[in-house]
């Protein structure tokens, strides 16, 4: 067993998930490849979205992968950090907006 749950080297082995379930794995990677092609959004724009999402879902593999890809796509440090702030704002907002639920409950329960 490895000492940590996450191992950077495992990212290179991502494609091996098809070993246990070929059909679904291959469908996923086909889909994944199609998603990141130029479309209504450019692959460059998609890379920065992926970087933000990687931070929102806190996936270490995705953060490594899309930090590299964002650099490759020519984004600068400020642009990349602003994308992370978008993720942070949405996550923070997602918590805070539940405050309304809390307030509603409070109003129901208090005299």
């Amino acid at each position, binding site marked *: 067993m490895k000492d940590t749950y996450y191992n950077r080297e495992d990212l290179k082995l991502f494609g091996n998930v098809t070993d246990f379930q070929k059909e679904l794995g291959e469908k996923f990677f086909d889909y994944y490849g199609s998603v990141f092609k130029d479309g209504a959004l450019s*692959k*460059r724009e998609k890379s920065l979205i992926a970087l933000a999402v990687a931070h929102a879902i806190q996936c270490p593999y995705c953060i490594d992968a899309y930090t*590299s890809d964002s*650099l*490759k*796509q*020519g984004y*600068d*440090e400020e642009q990349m950090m602003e994308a992370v702030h978008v993720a942070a704002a949405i996550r923070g907002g997602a918590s805070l907006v539940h405050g309304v639920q809390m307030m509603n409950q409070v109003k129901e329960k208090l005299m």
Partner: protein
Amino acid sequence: MNASSLLKRHHTLANPEAQIEVLDNADALGILSFAHKMETFGLFPLRPTGIDILQVNVGKMCNQVCKHCHVDAGPDRKEIMTRETMEQCLAAIKTSEITTVDLTGGAPEMNPHFRWFVEEIVALGKRIIVRCNLTIILANPKYHDLPEFFKKHKVNVVSSLPYFSARRTNAQRGEGVFEKSIQALKMLNTVGYGQENTDLQLDLVYNPSGAFLPGDQQGLENEFKAKLWDGYGIRFNSLFTITNLPVSRFLEYLVHSGNYETYMQELVNAFNPTAAANVMCRNTISVGWDGYLYDCDFNQMLDLKVSEKNHISQFDLDLLNTREIILNQHCYGCTAGAGSSCGGAIT
């Protein structure tokens, strides 16, 4: 990492043999030799398609000490092409099918015979490229008229600007380089370079400021054009994306920063057979400051000379056209992704 050449620092990697030793250790990384890789695609031995471009390195002297420089150029480098060697280059150009002469360095403008050489090349009716680092224009009053000189001889100016922000450019090329580069670009724009309705071609070179590959050339060109126009009112014609090859100071950076293995793996994983068929060494001959001949500027820095009649004074077009191009592990840099050449992506 110090801001001086490997040679000045007496660094091991100043020696081309030491660089090749690092590169040849590919088995330890589990990397197939580049020659074997090419063989699997029917590209070994690799032969020229015809010599269209003569790239001449007129000296290693430079006013900058960029961290990624594959020439190991700098102010302390005194190797300069003599006028006699330039005359031998001109003689070779006259007897060949060469259409383009590409002058590089160091800062080629620092060679005392530079202007004479440009005039002689232009007189032969050849297209001429000068790889100008931009800051040389401001380095000394004697260089301030370079934009006018370039304009007079319709030189295609190709200039490195690794990024459209100061932080990343200066981190790679030295403190204050971005600001001076912007000033020099404005001077070139003022005389007509990069402007619509002129034939004065100003191209920029983007190379990554670290251990990663360049992205899509067209996408980056669009981004550079928008940022340089919006931020500084600067225009240029094309952006060339160039991959950093693991040679000289970039190799030092990779080893020193612990990125060497990962970077080599990335180059290998991105091998593109289409790019491999279009590599620049197939239509280029590179001349060193001392007149020796190489398949490309990178082989020049690794001292991998062409095998026979390897001096410009012995220029033999037929022999060069049928030669076997010398390959090594650094060649993976030219075949990765969209491919890389001195003219940018090759696919």
